């Protein structure tokens, strides 16, 4: 169970969803709700990719 909790596949989607919920209101003034959530999700996914790239740079042999 602990191993599963520590696994990236478990917490990454949770983190992205949480980030989307937090960031969506920032776009609410300029966009309707659907677009606000989509933009927040895009921002979170971009950040996730950036973290992934840092992980590749730090531990390239694992990829």
């Amino acid at each position: 169970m602990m191993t599963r909790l520590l696994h990236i596949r478990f917490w990454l989607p949770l983190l992205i969803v949480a980030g989307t919920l937090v960031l969506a209101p920032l776009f609410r003034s300029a966009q309707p709700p659907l677009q606000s959530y989509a933009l927040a999700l895009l921002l979170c996914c971009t950040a996730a990719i950036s973290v992934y790239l840092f992980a590749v740079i730090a531990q390239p042999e694992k990829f």
Partner: protein
Amino acid sequence: MPTSTRVLFPRMPRGPRQERRYLERPRQQGLLQRAIVEAFRKLDPRLAVANPVMFVVWCGTVLCLALTIEPRLLDAAAGARERGFNALISLTLLATLLFANFAEALAEGRGKAQADALRRTQARTQARRQLPDGSIELVDSSALRRGDVVLVQGGDVIPADGEVIAGVASVDESAITGESAPVLKEAGSDVAGSVTGGTRILSDQLTLRISADPGKGFIDRMIALVEGAERSKTPNEIALTVLLAVLTQVFLIAVATLSPVAGFLQKPPSVVTLVALLVALIPTTIGGLLSAIGIAGMDRVAQFNVIATSGRAVEACGDVNTLVLDKTGTITLGNRLAEEFLPVGGYSSAELAVVAYGASCFDQTPEGRSIVRLAEKLGAALPFEPASASGIDFSARTRMSGSDSADGIEFRKGAVDAIKGFVRSRGGVVPDQLDQCFEQVSRLGGTPLAVCRGAELYGVIYLKDIIKPGIRERFDQLRRMGIRTVMLTGDNPITAGVIAREAGVDDFIAEATPEDKIAVIQQEQKLGKLVAMTGDGSNDAPALAQANVGVAMNSGTQAAKEAANMVDLDSDPTKLIDIVTIGKQLLITRGALTTFSIANDIAKYFAILPALFAGVGLQALNVMRLASPQSAILSAMVFNALIIPALVPLALKGVKFRPLSAEQLLRRNLLVYGAGGVVAPFIGIKLIDLAIGALRLI
């Protein structure tokens, strides 16, 4: 010492290379079909995540597909008419991914086809296992375990890898080597004493001790290797992966922050355009071809009938600074032949021939057999009854061999100083003339073998050594590439010096013992150099393990094969030079395509940036005069996709190898692939833009 049994390669005369059928080229059609299927399968994100550059493209593709389905997903003001453009960009990105996957799958497919061919040799068979009480039981080959003793006879398939403990037989190894000529296997021989499961015994009978458990045999390991099951990234690949990830990270941050900047200019670009810019800027060409280049390098080694245990080994070849080479079989033709008898101490040639015959009658090396032939040609007869005499094997310590007759007479031949010592130890006198003969033969580049009968020294046998044709040119090439060659030989310093000079090696070590090999390697490695060597005997195993690239001969012992990181199925030590060339070619190809990929960015930048900021005064940057912003973006994306399959043949075949120094190679690389990488996209993107206009795609 010249008559080393280690240089005996007990092969029958070989057929031409074309006859070999191992690693037969798989049918192109089957390969392509398999690669196409694999290209789609590799779209699985769990597989795509292994390649950072292509994973970013994968994410961009998913985003563009979503925006094709719903163009207003991210911007409520976006119009439905953008759907067509989004669809075209999505398709282009998907094609980029598929082309990159196809390149990798094509390279892997070759290995898998070779693995299939090898797997066919692994038919299960019945084995005759000998029980401790001497009785025989029939068992399935899969039931055999390491240490079991089995009997095989003419017509049988050898059930598992093993060491010959009794018998002499011809074995057909064509299943693994492609060599149609049978190979002699015999007990007690350092280089002919091991057999491989799956090969077939043609005649006689052998008793084998099984040396590998099921699934851990030589062919099993070969299958795993050529299939790429054990493929891990090489140090060079890792370094390049980091560089590509850094570039991707930089461009990701740059593109992500571009949107607010563009917003400030009241010209916010669409997300699809930003994705296109990102994909155009990140090094997709090398990102897509990187693993294919590595796999193809291993495949090229396999085409030479050499099995590399890892890509790391092949890559290490490219960085090798020093080659440690055995003289016999590598620099000179393996079989030295007796050319002349040079008597001393008042004996005649005929008398010397008789003693040489006596000293060589048990010597089954090509040298020994050639001495017997020359003696018989001179009319000599064996001076004792062979049935009652006993043979004395050559050893690296005594550096002599011979026979003892039933009446106690010792016939010996060997290194001149060893025989001198032997004669003196028996109370004999060494004639001064011996040194003259020794020098005379040595200065001809031949090997002098002294011959004695007890305490009487009879003379010298001149063993002629022939330098392989073209070897000097090969060494010249290696020197131009900055590789130093060191020749190791058991010969005396004068002979070694003559051969070294004629062959053009940089350095030599004469009268070398097996321990000298490892000492030379360690000494070079202390100077920070990478060393490659070949070996076949058990005594070579430590040096093979110590060397950065150790190539074991397939005819060699199990210990040598396990210590080495490559196995040459043809047992041809000269191939080390070819392998080094392939390693260099692998690194040069990777460097060339990286240069090309990064240089590509300039043209793509000039295509996409003016399009991105169309209407805010950046039109001056549209140096290619592309028709419209959308056409410019699409042209850059199409070029980005098409350049990958266009470079697949180069990635798989490798850049043409030229024996140049590192500086010359870098200059050439920058000129051809750097300048080419800048110019080619300008031309390509303009042509694609014209085609898009003509086809009215946008």
